[in-house]
């Protein structure tokens, strides 16, 4: 083991994670189309391969062969870079997400960062630039409106999201994702932090621009919002970024509130591959919840979105944070 240079190990890990994550993205998309189809009394894609299983491949080929248009009025450099900002930030998060752990405590992640959760928030904040710049540089009105909305929405909801997560950090006493999961061996944080969990769920949907908070894309009013002018592979990159963000927040919810790779029943084994299985099941439940949400709720009106973020979520999450801090200060041993 010591003969293999550390950079090679990290590289191999990164390639594996990247491959798995991209495949997960492809099938998350198919899963969404299938589930939404069933909820709307139709079968969903079922023509490409058995049960439509090759649909992601067909979609990828379609995206790649479409013309890559740049509008005359666009700022060409920023217009071309913007999708990559979104995608790189969305992918970068997976570098530190631990998917499971060995019994000796070694995490199954590409890198282990002490300030893990801060790293995630930092990257997702930079990811907003991808959307904002895309809308701004398109040289068109709908994308500009979409990106303005995106910026406002992200600022409003990121605040409440961070607040809801700080409650967990106080309980765990660490910002490293591995430590947070280990702190949940006895009790998942979803129970003491039920308010924080609900706020996280809501804000996570808003952070990923998914229905009912998809005002950034709002097909009916903004013709696709920030990606109106994008086509072909560049549009595909935004698409990948959106789904990767969805997977990211699902993974984070699992790690922060649902005990990560710990088994739901205390007696069952939870390390290694079985832990990975638990992790995937929990994250998949979140993905399902997202799709369920999308096919159930209509889109928010913009002023209500802002009202809800600032007048409801922020006060409640602040109160939750204060109560958690007081509780930990009063009974330090129970945390």
């Amino acid at each position, binding site marked *: 083991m010591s003969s293999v240079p550390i950079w090679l190990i990290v590289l191999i890990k990164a390639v594996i994670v990247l491959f798995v994550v991209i495949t997960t993205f492809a099938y998350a998309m198919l899963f969404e189309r299938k*589930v939404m189809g*069933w*909820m*709307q*009394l*139709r*079968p969903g894609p*079922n023509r490409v391969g058995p049960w439509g299983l090759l649909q992601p491949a067909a979609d990828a080929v379609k995206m790649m062969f479409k013309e890559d248009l740049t509008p005359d009025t666009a700022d060409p450099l920023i217009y071309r870079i913007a999708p990559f900002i979104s995608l790189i930030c969305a992918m970068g998060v997976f570098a530190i997400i631990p998917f499971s752990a060995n019994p000796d405590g070694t995490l199954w992640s590409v890198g282990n960062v002490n300030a893990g959760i801060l790293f995630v928030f930092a990257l997702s904040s930079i990811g907003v630039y991808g959307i904002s710049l895309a809308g701004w540089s398109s040289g068109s009105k709908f994308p500009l409106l979409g990106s303005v909305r995106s910026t406002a929405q992200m600022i409003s909801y990121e605040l409440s999201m961070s607040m809801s997560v700080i409650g967990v950090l106080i309980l765990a006493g660490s910002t490293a994702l591995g430590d947070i999961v280990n702190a949940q061996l006895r009790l998942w944080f979803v129970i003491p932090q039920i308010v924080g969990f609900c706020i996280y769920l809501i804000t996570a949907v808003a952070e990923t621009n998914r229905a009912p908070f998809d005002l950034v894309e709002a097909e009916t009013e903004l013709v696709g919002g920030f990606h109106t002018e994008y086509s072909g592979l560049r549009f595909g990159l935004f698409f990948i970024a959106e789904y990767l963000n969805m997977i990211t927040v699902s993974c984070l919810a699992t790690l922060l509130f649902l005990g990560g790779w710990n088994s739901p029943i205390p007696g069952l084994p939870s390390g290694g591959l079985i832990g990975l299985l638990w992790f995937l099941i929990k994250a998949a439940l979140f993905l399902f919840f997202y799709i*369920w949400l999308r*096919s*159930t*709720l209509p889109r928010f009106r913009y002023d*209500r979105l802002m*009202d*809800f973020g600032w007048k*409801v979520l922020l006060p409640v999450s602040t109160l939750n944070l204060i109560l958690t801090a007081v509780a930990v200060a009063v009974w330090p041993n129970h945390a």
Partner: protein
Amino acid sequence: MRKNLFNVGALVRGFTTTFSYMFKRMPTVQYPSVKKQHAPRFHGLHELRRYGDGKERCIGCELCAIACPANAITVIGAENSPADRRSPGERFASRYEIDELRCIFCGLCEEACPTDAIVLTPRFEMADYRRGAFVYAKDRLLVPPEAGAGTPPDERPNGIPADLGSVFRTKDTVDIAEGYEATHRGQVLKTQRQGLTLREGRGDVA
């Protein structure tokens, strides 16, 4: 705002509705592999009928072309010669063309025809890559002599076949057979108002 955002009961109902729909039977017909049977009176592709002895019904009168609201029909009549009688009358259609891209499948040609020669069939699969292919001439419209006289358009059964109804008969969808009956009742009422009676089973006004 408060009322809408915190109405948890409505949220729960919405979520249970979408979830339960996942397990309902879907009315989708897997079209190219499963084909649904159309009603006998469905307005699809036309055909030119013959008499039982193989003679063409069309007498080249052009009433269908006059009745056509879309100007889709072209008829050029010609005199029958004693040596080669194409139709029982004096004249026959030397050319009969329908532009199926212009056709609105209203069936007025069928109603206008004095000899029941032009009839709309339930066939509807006419897709092609060339525009020209949609102009149907006699070579494609005229039924082969061995097809016989066929059912006169007025005597086709009303309503819809049973298996068509079963495809759509789920708990939540409107029963199509019922819809047809409602339409029929409406027709009866309308003709009564006009002082006429509807011939039962024929669907036309006496």
